[in-house]
């Protein structure tokens, strides 16, 4: 390695990440941070890790940026064909199964932890986790990425079924903010996507809108300028 080129110039683009999806009364809410790293350098501080698969199904991506982008492109393409052939919008289960199929059959080549979530008229809002290895798990809520380690305890204690839309969104934003506070590989802004029978709504929470926790300095009172 040349002395002048840092490790970040050759490290793979990875999404350290905190991603999650929860079912609420009427649909699902997906949430993610926005930090993409190459080594210790933040390559993109405003990335969008919630990718659209169909009008009613979205995918949260964590792990290798390249691997998850390729998987989501393939699944979007397959679902597009499937929708045309089927004559109806695809179900969340179908989308999740396609993601699982790619993840499982190529498990030795891929480093991709994904969460598939959406709404269809048969199952309502559904969340499916597809972690490394290619397991497919339907869950009421799922979380992934390096920041998820810091959330398990909080989620076990705080999650309740059948939350309202606003409650659920606040819950997702609070969780991602907690993970960002403790995980170096997660950061930036919090993006949320709400999917229900009425359609899709995208939201964006910049740093100053996020809840503050123990010993965090409020925005505006910047210690460097004080």
């Amino acid at each position, binding site marked *: 390695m*040349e*002395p*002048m*080129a*840092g490790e970040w*110039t*050759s490290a*793979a*683009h990875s999404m350290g990440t905190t991603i999650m999806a929860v079912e609420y009364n009427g649909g699902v809410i997906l949430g993610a941070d926005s930090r*993409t790293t*190459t080594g210790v*350098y933040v*390559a*993109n501080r*405003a*990335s969008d890790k919630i990718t659209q698969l169909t009008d009613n199904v979205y995918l949260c991506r964590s792990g*290798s*940026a*390249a691997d998850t*982008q*390729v998987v989501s492109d393939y699944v979007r393409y397959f679902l597009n064909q499937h929708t045309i052939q089927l004559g109806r919008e695809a179900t969340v289960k179908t989308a999740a199964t396609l993601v699982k199929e790619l993840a499982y059959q190529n498990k030795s*080549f891929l480093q991709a932890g994904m969460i598939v979530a959406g709404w269809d008229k048969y199952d309502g809002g559904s969340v499916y986790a597809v972690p490394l290895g290619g397991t497919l798990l339907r869950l009421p809520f799922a979380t992934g990425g390096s920041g998820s380690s810091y959330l398990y305890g909080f989620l076990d204690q705080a999650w309740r079924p059948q939350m309202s839309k606003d409650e659920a969104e606040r819950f997702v934003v609070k969780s991602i903010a907690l993970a960002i506070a403790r995980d170096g590989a997660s950061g930036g802004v919090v993006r949320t996507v709400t999917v229900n029978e009425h359609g899709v709504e995208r939201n964006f929470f910049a740093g100053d809108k996020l809840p503050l926790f123990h010993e965090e300095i409020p925005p505006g009172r910047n210690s460097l300028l004080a």
Partner: protein
Amino acid sequence: MTKTTIDLPPKGGFSFDLCRRNAFLESQGTKMPKFRKTGTTIVGLIFKDGVILGADTRATEGEIVCDKNCEKIHYLAPNISCCGAGTAADTENVTDMVSSQLELHRYATGRDSRVVTALTMLKSHLFGYQGAVSAALVLGGVDVTGPHLHAVYPHGSTDTLPFATMGSGSLAAMAMFESRFKEGMTREEGIEVVCAAICAGIFNDLGSGSNVDLCVITKGGKEYLRNYQQPNPRSYTHSKGYHFTSGHTAILSSKIRALRNQVRVVEGDAMEEE
């Protein structure tokens, strides 16, 4: 029972067989040749009327500067350009390849190329080679859907951004962008910011140096400004030039030999000039 064999179609992508051989040779003491890399600072930003791409012009082989004025802004289409960082051979060849594919695509579709087409071609190729093609690119252009700017990484992932930097000087350049970038800048403002970012890389990164190249792409066309800024002029030459009168160097021995006479064809036919 018949024995069934399944003939799989040949899988594309890189064959890593020779890598084992190279590793073995290296362990036996063979010195591997150094790659020509473009240490590099490359940047791109979106301004009011389109996209501005910028690059430095230093190419290195290990610690030596092998080219003080190379071109890192590559042509992809009349409305699309691409800056390349990483192994020079990889960036040159992958951009040439995609440029050809885009031209064929234009003939087939009868339309001007779109930036996302170039992006998909690049990312598919790079992903297939699993990072072995060491090309980190800043792709920018203006098509019917508007101005676009993308960062492409060697493993095949891409980012879509309003401003992007790549290469060993990317941190210095990003620092300039983060403090100076505004949305909807004019052409002059945009050029100023891009030059500042490239100069930050030139002066603070050992892998980048020499001059600033720019490429301004708008709906109206592409303007390639080669050596827009030259902040490292060759000012160390002697004003009187270098001239050594005879006697400066001691002559140890001399041997004078006449050049051979011109060859005349005496037999047979002289080679025909076309």
